[in-house]
């Protein structure tokens, strides 16, 4: 057993192995990370997520988010962290609440109203 291990170690030793910049304890955490960085806006750019930006503050924020994930913070807590420091507009997801009601439900209401009008007109003709 040990001999095999030794031989394998000898074979792979000439190759150095690089590593991930953002390390996580599980694949789920990693998926969460990559999903989050696409939803958080780069604080310094006109537009774009921190995933697509290599501005220093974006890099710092990505590192921080990876840290927070590894420390066990949830997605909501991480988003709150970003919101508190950079403002609500750092999230590309305008959360659903009383002020964004029109935004989220507007299209649905619009569709229903027009469909209603369309069908009502048929009924009364």
């Amino acid at each position, binding site marked *: 057993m040990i001999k095999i291990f030794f031989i394998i170690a000898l074979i792979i030793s000439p190759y150095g192995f690089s590593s991930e910049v953002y390390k996580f304890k599980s694949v789920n955490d990693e998926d969460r990370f990559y999903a989050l960085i696409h939803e958080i806006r780069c604080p*310094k750019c006109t537009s774009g997520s921190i995933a697509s930006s290599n501005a220093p503050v974006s890099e710092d924020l990505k590192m921080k988010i990876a840290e927070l994930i590894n420390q066990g913070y949830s997605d909501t807590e991480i988003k709150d962290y970003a919101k508190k*420091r*950079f403002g609500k507009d750092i999230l590309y997801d305008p959360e659903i609440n009383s002020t964004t009601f029109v935004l989220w439900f507007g299209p649905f209401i619009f569709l229903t109203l027009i469909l209603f009008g369309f069908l009502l007109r048929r009924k009364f003709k």
Partner: protein
Amino acid sequence: MKNLIRSLIILLPLFGIYFFFNILTEEKFYPGADFRSFEVPNFELSALDLDVKYTSEDFDNEFLMNVWASWCITCRVEHGFLMKLNNDGYNIVGLNYKDNKSDALGWLKKYTNPYSLNIHDPKGSLALDMGVTGAPETFLVKDGVVLVHYSGEVNKVIWDNVFFPIIKENKMFQ
């Protein structure tokens, strides 16, 4: 009903035009000013010029924090005003952001030091925790709570219109 739709077809665009006209002509003052308040986060970082470590305990109750760096060109322009504030008795804490210690100390020597104490934040960890995106930026803090976060150069115009009203309102620096 039909007439309602017909009038809406005209009215909605007119309303839209009115709305855009207002947005185009409204004056946006001081876009760098952010008045959302939050608590100063905990931290432990080395001092720039002394062999000690600072935490949030080392702060006064009321102070200004200025984010600066030797590579920041606008900071040199702002420096004169910071010296004036210092002379007027305002307590300014320096947060040296993503800077090399010797470069930063050299800068202070060349331009003189307006800061009561200076934190060295080479990785920008405290800066990130406070929502800093670059230099220069200035915070107004009272009792551990940030009241004003200004991004950009602080000069007399900004001071009079952004900081001073808040200082007066909260009866600070008396």
